[in-house]
């Protein structure tokens, strides 16, 4: 009586797998959830088609302002027609390849630095050379490049300049302040604490005002420094306090044993910090430091208020042109997109790095 049992494989019910199953589990799992889904879809249905119509179907891309008015949709022409001014501002038109090249160098360096395998000494030197070349490209005056007044620096290069140089210069200061705050010497500790807490307690704008109206009073007669450098100093002083707090977190995360071991090896304070503590602490704080870079990048937009022509200000200058009046929403969306791309790529990189570092690979 050997009868082969034919086993029939039943498929799971169609309502549990595939699109239907997914929707049931994620959109309609309960009465309340179903209600929520329907309300949300209703609102999306109300908003999204109109938005797409405005932004894509009815929009104009390469027309004049007057033709935009007639078309009725979004007027992206304000961006395409004024792109070079929005990005490069008042930089002499024929020399705008120089800031462009500087930005390409910066982005290349940033992309190379993403890879942790390249985190060696040569990368540091490469950055120093890169920063020097970028500065040279903007400033000129060497190797046959005509000099460009810093008052002409504007647009996206200025925004990047303020944030990248700001962070680079603020980092050593921030590390010093963090060490000062952890110091056992009461005078140094209290100086650092007062500095850090004061700066973190006041808005960046007050420092920018200080740089624009008070710095000239601080300097002896006859010496003036230009606007950009003054704003840069304010940004450095401001960012340093935030870096100090981030680095302090790293210093506190190093176990006491490391400090004690270094001391019992007979290392003095500088050797202990430089060889043992800081290399470990600074590695921990890389992800939050990227966060500071993001904030610095966003905060540079405040220099508008003291009259520097950064990306936001060049856009506003375009908008004050009577031919393009009334299309501010489109122009602002465009620069919001630039800021978003920058910040989003940095923040997602920082999250990835955090996962990698804390996994201990």
């Amino acid at each position: 009586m050997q009868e082969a049992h034919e086993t029939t494989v039943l498929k799971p019910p169609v309502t549990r797998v595939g699109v239907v199953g997914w929707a049931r589990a994620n959109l309609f799992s309960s009465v309340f959830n179903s209600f929520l889904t329907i309300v949300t879809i209703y609102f999306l249905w109300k908003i999204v088609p109109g938005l797409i119509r405005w932004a894509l179907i009815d929009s104009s891309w390469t027309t004049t302002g007057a033709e935009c008015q007639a078309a009725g949709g979004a007027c992206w022409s304000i961006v395409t027609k004024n792109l070079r001014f929005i990005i490069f501002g008042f930089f002499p038109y024929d020399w705008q390849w120089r800031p462009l090249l500087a930005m390409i160098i910066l982005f290349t360096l940033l992309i190379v630095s993403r890879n942790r395998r390249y985190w060696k000494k040569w990368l540091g030197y490469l950055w120093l050379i890169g920063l020097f070349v970028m500065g040279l490209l903007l400033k000129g005056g060497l190797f046959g490049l005509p000099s460009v007044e810093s008052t002409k620096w504007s647009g996206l290069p200025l925004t990047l300049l303020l944030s990248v140089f700001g962070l680079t210069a603020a980092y050593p200061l921030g590390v010093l302040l963090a060490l000062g705050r952890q110091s056992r010497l009461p005078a140094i500790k209290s100086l650092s604490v007062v500095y850090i807490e004061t700066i973190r307690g006041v808005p960046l704008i007050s420092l920018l005002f200080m740089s624009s109206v008070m710095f000239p009073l601080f300097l002896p007669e006859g010496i003036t420094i230009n606007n950009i450098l003054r704003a840069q100093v304010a940004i450095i002083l401001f960012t340093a306090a935030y870096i100090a707090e981030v680095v302090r977190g790293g210093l506190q995360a190093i176990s006491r044993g490391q400090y004690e071991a270094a001391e019992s090896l007979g290392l003095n304070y500088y050797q202990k910090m430089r060889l043992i503590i800081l290399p470990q602490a600074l590695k921990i704080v890389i992800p939050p430091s990227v966060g500071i870079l993001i904030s610095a990048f966003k905060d540079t937009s405040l220099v508008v208020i003291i009259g520097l022509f950064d990306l936001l200000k060049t856009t506003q200058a375009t908008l004050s042109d009577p031919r393009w009046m009334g299309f501010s929403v489109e122009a602002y969306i465009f620069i919001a997109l630039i800021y978003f791309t920058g910040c989003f790529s940095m923040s997602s990189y920082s999250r990835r790095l955090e996962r990698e570092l804390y996994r201990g690979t």
Partner: protein
Amino acid sequence: MAQEVKDSPEITTSAKISFWYDPTKRAVIYQVVVLGIVGMVAYYLFSNTLANLERQNIATGFGFFTKEASFEIGESAIPYSAADTYGRALLVGVLNTIKVSFIGIILTVILGTFLGIARLSRNWLVAKLAGIYIEVMQDIPVLLQLVFWYAVFYDTFPSPRQALNPISGVFLCNRGMAFAVPEPHPVYGYMALALVIGCLAVWVLRRWAKKRQEKTGQIFPVVLISLAILLVLPLATWLLGGAPLKMNVPKLVGFNFEGGTTFSPEFAALLLGLVLYTAAFVAEIVRAGIQAISRGQVEAAMSMGLKPGQVLRLVILPQALRVIIPPLTSQMLNLTKNSTLAIAIGFPDFVSVANTTINQTGQAIEGVGMIMVVYLFFSLSTSGFMNWYNKRVALVER
């Protein structure tokens, strides 16, 4: 027990250590050197400043407080005209800053909490939308958002004659947002009084209920009864007072709205921008706070026989708040500090008024100093209050 380990025995050979290698003397020298350098730099800047002030004939001191300001301020919580003093103008600025920060913080906490919960929703669509919102808002500078909303009010909203009317009683136009408010009536004053009395009654009730529970173990439904007291007392007052219902609805008169309350476009844009931006950060904080509680806590509380409401009130919230409050405080301070960006869209907050004062009097040092002191005061008082509150909810360990 192990014998208490003494600190490394005092080295009694200090006489043999040369002056340079004695850590205590070294420490003193370092500190004297650092203080000396800081002092010298400060003195150098100070003397330069004095010389510059004298050369440019700029007055010093706060004498300008009592002088006539002679500039108008767009909106003000207290009566103000150009004939008033600088002191009063600055007070108007402070009040405007407090107004926008206070309303902003309340709205931000509400919106942020909703978004944080939505981010964790089991509904895929809701969670994804909340996630997109949070990511996008965090990555766009708040100043850009402010000028964007201001432009929306200015460029895209129609004139008052064709004002948008999304909900009855609310009008949106390029002169701002007008909305209906209840007509003033003495009953509202009594209702507020009833609410205060209700709060007192609830406080007394809670103390009594707690004492009784400690003594007898009987639980009194405090929350329900408290809610009832807080709702019923003002409502009863309202009914007794003749239930006034009249609303002051804004009406188009000439070229603008009259009646109701109007938020100027500057104020509306500032509030909208600050709230939408900061709420994204608050949402992340709330999400982290909720995720910080392990499932075991909820299951343990339920298996002890606590009801869902009690689980939330006695187990989840106290633990989540402990994680949420410190970063939430810094977000509230950020909102207050970011409200200084009002100057970019022309809302007369404190910084904007102080800036006008600096430009008119030339007294930059006093002006910037005042700005710093006022915001330091806001920061320190808020963080002081929050630290006190945080200590109350903090975990008491050993």
